[in-house]
């Protein structure tokens, strides 16, 4: 009985592990390393903008400081977005 159970588990494991090797179609395309990096940078930049806004609203940043930081953060975010558009266009083309 034990032997049968072990064989059944072994068969299940082989079936699960070998499934991708038996696949006939192509795997879902990867978004590409550069795009993934830029998307991660974009998310981080949005978070940074959001943090600066919260710091300003809670009185940790003066209006002047916030304006300067926010301007610089948005410029950095725009740079990332442009790079992202470029990378996506390059990949599509």
């Amino acid at each position, binding site marked *: 009985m*034990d*032997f049968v*159970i*072990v064989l059944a*588990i*072994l068969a*299940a*494991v082989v079936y*699960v*592990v*070998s*499934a*991708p*090797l038996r*696949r006939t179609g192509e*795997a*879902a395309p*990867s978004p590409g*390393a550069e795009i*993934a*990096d830029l998307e*991660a*940078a974009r*998310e*981080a930049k*949005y*978070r*940074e*903008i*959001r*943090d*600066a806004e*919260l*710091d300003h*609203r*809670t*009185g*940790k*940043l*003066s209006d*002047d*400081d916030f304006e300067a*930081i926010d301007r610089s953060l*948005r410029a950095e*975010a*725009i740079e990332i*977005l*442009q790079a992202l558009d470029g990378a996506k266009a390059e990949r599509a083309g």
Partner: protein
Amino acid sequence: MALVGRALLILGLGVSVYGIGASLYGALQGGQRWVDSGRRAVYALAGVMTLAFVILEAAFLRSDFSFNVVAGHSSTTTPTFYKATAAWSSQEGSLLLWVWLLSLWSSLILFLTRRKVREIAPYATAVLLGFATFFGSLTAFFANPFATTANPPSEGAGLNPLLRHASMMFHPPMLYSGYTLLAIPFAFAIGALITRRLNSEWIQVTRRFALAAWLFLGIGILLGARWSYTELGWGGYWAWDPVENAALMPWLCCTAFIHSIMIQEKRGMLKVWNASLILASGTLAVLGTFLVRSGILDSIHAFGASTLGVPFVILLGVMVTGSVALIIWRRADLRSDSQLDSLLSREAVFLFQNLVLVGMTFVIFWVTFFPLISEALTGTKVSVGPPAFRPFIVPLALVLVLLSGVGPLIAWRRVTAANLRRSFAFPVAAGLVALVVLLLVGGVSKRPFALAMFCLGTFVIASVGQELWRGVRARRAMTRDPVPRAFLQLIRRNRRRYGGYIVHAGLAVLLIGVAASSSFQHSHDVVLRPGQQAVVDGYRITYVRPIARATAEKISFGAVLDVAKGGRHVQTLTTTRGFYPAQDPTLGVVGRFFNGEEESQVGLRAGLTKDIWTVISPDLTPIQPLINQGDQVFLKAMSAAAALPPAQARAQITNLFAARDAAIGALADRWVRHPWAAEFLLIVSPLVTWIWLGAIVIAIGGLIALWPVPVLARRRATSAYAARLARELA
């Protein structure tokens, strides 16, 4: 089912080795199918290990003593809850738990990242399966939980009495979850270094796992401290034991990591530092596992000397040299993208805090391993105790608390002097008020470190309170929500930030409790007879009467104590010392019942301001002659019974066992009827409860920070910023 269990271990090992090969082959050849197959090997490993663990658990619950591990760590008299959790009280079972948890967390991260980090993932899979292969090999070949015996005993040895404590039962799974979760960012850091994908992507996908590792490890450490306080009978919660330190070191490193990765995410800085921190944390996690198992350092928590030391040393050697080599190899790619704008910024505070945390880790490492270092250099093992830690750890802890209050008050990038004044005014005033009030209280000024901790703790709590209030006020200005709703919405929308702040407040509460209880503890070691009293910190503690209980599981001798203050009854406490029977028959038919494992039940009155902690150490010397006499009488009677024909011998031995039980009951009864003096340890400690409350606050803050933001809310926030930027671009 032991055969199935053994086969599953071998199968798990085979799957792990295959997964490593498939992942690496796929990564090197660009074959996504092989990479996917390697990932599925991790899922399969999780399934196989789950089955193996279920089989082991079933053996414990059925008291199947044909399993050596069950016979050695459980018994028919062990309560069901402890039977279920006894699996990880053994070397074999805990190693299986390690592999099982690792396989579960590995499956989770690889499932979540199946369409992300495609370059890094195969290498991370190989590293994770490398750990699984190592621990799987130990389980399969050196400490097999499915080893059986042809002649199972009718009764098991039972669970170590010291482990029959609810928090101790959850402590190992929590610690192992922490250790195995740390393997995730470790593996992805290795993958990122190999593939030179060193931006913040690998950090984003593993950040939550690092935070979970920090949370589980922290809960495990605190559960261990609680167990030590209520079970070990010495009155303390932290002894700077090597195994305790082994869990604290990766926790400190991980604390530094989850702060400094924010700087890398935001500014692209500290890449070398972050990679080094997580590689060190992962290595320290394995070092912790090694310390519990090798027996190289004396510890109450260790499994004792075993043969597992050499494989662990090899693994640690590979991890350390591999990590250092990778960092050196990729140093050009680890350059920072930007620089610190100002020393008056949150980044700078984080950096300083990181240095303090790493400094604490280094001190703990050095002092913990000093016995081994001294032995290697001089040939003599020099043991250093808790006093060696304090001169370094106490000042560093003070700086850490200060920084945990400063961090939330300072903005990212830079701040102006006017803003600093506005942010610091209230918390600093609160700290100064605490200082004045405490200086007026007699005795506190004699303990400058404790005084500093109280003031700094107040500063932190005030700074977090102020930040929460300012956040609520800002939210109300936008939404006009009532305060409770604004508070909840503020935290819900900024979980990382405010979860972290709550953790800081909890840390302050916890460390205030540590400072108070360690600096102002009153402890008395006294010998009392029934009716006698001792006074500790103004509390009159009276030994009212002795109590005793003899059961099949253990014999307990104890005392009922009355606690009073100023003539008023405060509490009645009961403390006992339990003696579990030894399995060694050479200790005597009666004597073995008094010479096995022992455990203490503490008489504790826990309060918000003070804990009254009592424990009894009964002296069995007065009944030792009776025990010896009983051993001789029963030995003779047993020998005589053995010479009888089998049927008569069986009946006679049954009668003798009944007589023996009655004799043991009479010995216990003697403690009550003719009581003699007993030794008591009586302790009154202030603010111990604050430690546990602080820990709960930390856990709540950690959970808030860990809890994922709903996808819809995240998309909404992202879209709003994207739209705003698009407008600017246009």
